[in-house]
């Protein structure tokens, strides 16, 4: 128990985070490059064609993983927002800012690939369908959080405002999650289901699972890279950062 408390205490120290993450960066870089090459070759070259949608369905191999990360990133951000507001941990605010950037980019990828996939499948680039609209709202929330975190002269004020917006924006998450069941519109239901058999053939499903694993590794890598850069920026007047420069 004592060591666990110590672990969380250390996790809050930018210096310790920077040192430990330097060992994790190459691990996650290799994992994401390896898994992603495997998933892309399997998905683009070997997975069979869909009999209804033709080859356009291959967009699923980036659309679904990026949508997953867009949501997971928000869970993590909301948690960090709570940690920051309760304990004022500086590291929580730093990782929160990284989450906002990465989450916005992932939501953007999900929206754009969805639009491109929609054209041959639904005959239109954009619909004001419940899921599509709630994802667009998520994108704006991410942008708002990032903008707020940079909007104040005093960094702590910006972090506090961003954390509050992140917590308030959590309302949108269940709406996105259940939108395909609540309002049955154009967007298809979930392809992957935890409790029942998935709606996809295993030859198509396998590359998707590899791509999801690859994207999660990429997500961890990006969190580490962005947080490390942000640590260096905000601690640049500290002696330990000065010592890093020869």
């Amino acid at each position, binding site marked *: 128990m004592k060591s666990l408390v110590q672990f969380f205490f250390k996790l809050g120290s930018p210096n310790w985070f920077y040192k430990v993450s330097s060992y994790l960066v190459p691990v996650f870089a290799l994992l994401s490059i390896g898994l992603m090459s495997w998933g892309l070759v399997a998905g*683009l*070259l*070997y*997975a*069979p*064609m869909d009999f209804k949608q*033709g*080859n*356009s369905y*291959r*967009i699923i191999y*980036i*659309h679904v993983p*990026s949508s997953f990360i867009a949501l997971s990133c928000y869970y993590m951000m909301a948690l960090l927002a709570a940690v920051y507001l309760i304990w004022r941990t500086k590291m929580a605010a730093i990782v929160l800012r990284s989450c906002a*950037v*990465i989450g916005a*980019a992932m939501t*953007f*990828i999900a929206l*754009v*690939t969805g639009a*491109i*996939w929609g*054209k*041959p499948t639904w005959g239109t680039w954009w619909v004001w369908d419940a899921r599509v609209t709630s994802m667009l709202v998520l994108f704006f929330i991410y942008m708002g959080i990032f903008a707020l975190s940079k909007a104040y002269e005093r960094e702590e004020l910006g972090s506090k405002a961003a954390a509050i917006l992140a917590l308030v924006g959590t309302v949108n998450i269940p709406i996105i999650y259940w939108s395909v069941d609540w309002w049955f519109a154009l967007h298809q239901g979930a392809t992957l289901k935890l409790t029942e058999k998935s709606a996809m053939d295993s030859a198509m499903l396998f590359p998707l699972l590899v791509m999801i694993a690859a994207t999660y590794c*990429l997500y961890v*890598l*990006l969190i580490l*890279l*962005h947080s*490390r*850069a*942000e640590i*260096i*920026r905000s601690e*640049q007047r500290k002696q330990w*950062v*000065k010592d*890093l*420069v020869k």
Partner: protein
Amino acid sequence: MQFNSLQELWFMGGHGSYVWSAFAITATVVLGLVLQPILKRRKVFADIKQRKQFEAQQ
């Protein structure tokens, strides 16, 4: 292998432009996400170095 030639892979039965543009946009965004923190860190390190040299001259 689902495609018999590179041309077939590129064309994807008429869906090539959709599939490849989606992958290209994603690759661009991901590349930007990876490069941005690396460049930012490099810039801060350069600033620190400059400040150090300035202090040494004083």
